């Protein structure tokens, strides 16, 4: 599913990365712990989180995650947006809570990201 369509179904506002909205998302990972986010296998993955700080963007950068959604109406600070812009990561925010957001995406065919195992 294109990020553009995801934005519509979860009723999100795009804060940066408008030009990447045609990127396709297949899986999602939802968590507030960055150490958890660092353990899954990236596969066109969207990161949903209620935690708002620049470390989220750094984590996304390390994982090659192309888009981050901040839930329950959280708005990141300028530093976070600036870093996302610099790296080229889409950042959205939605009023929906994490559970609702995940449910909507799941019902629309987005699967949970798998844990990386070696």
């Amino acid at each position, binding site marked *: 599913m294109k990020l553009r369509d995801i934005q519509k179904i979860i009723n999100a506002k795009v804060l940066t990365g408008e030009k990447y909205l045609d990127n396709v998302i297949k899986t999602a990972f939802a968590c507030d712990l960055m150490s958890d986010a660092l353990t899954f296998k990236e596969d066109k993955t969207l990161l949903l989180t209620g935690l708002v700080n620049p*470390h989220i963007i750094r984590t996304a950068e390390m994982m090659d995650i192309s888009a981050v959604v901040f839930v329950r109406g959280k708005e990141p600070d300028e530093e976070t947006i600036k870093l996302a812009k610099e790296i080229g990561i889409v950042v959205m925010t939605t009023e929906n809570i994490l559970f609702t957001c995940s449910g909507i995406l799941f019902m629309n065919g987005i699967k949970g990201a798998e844990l990386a195992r070696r």
Partner: protein
Amino acid sequence: MHVDNMLFTFEKGARKIQLSYVIAKNDFSKAGTVASNIKKTLRKLGISSDIIKRVAVASYETEMNVIIHSHGGKMYLRIDLEKITIIAEDEGPGIEDVEMAMKEGYSTATSQIRELGFGAGMGLPNIKRCADDFEINSSLGNSTIIKVVFNL
């Protein structure tokens, strides 16, 4: 973070690169810049994306550990033809029980660190998972030295 030293040598076609980085205690504003620099360096060298991701995650976890748990330290990136090596050496205070520190979910991080999304007790096990070879040397009152190897 700043790149402390760069050493590029090419002897008879054999590639050897070493970069070192200085990391300050509790410097959360620069957290991730070392791992980001390492990732970009590997990308420029044309290393495969699977290896880059493993090195990036392990470097990021290592860098966060130095920032969160140590009095500051250094990280090194070494690249030769066979492998990539990440080394972190801090200025203490050392780990009391290394075996416990390696357990998933065990952490000594403060609630302030947890609020930032870290300190879940997944760092060291995650570094080990990403690596082809992992060594940790530490004891209370001494430096912690971590060596992470990725075969090319």
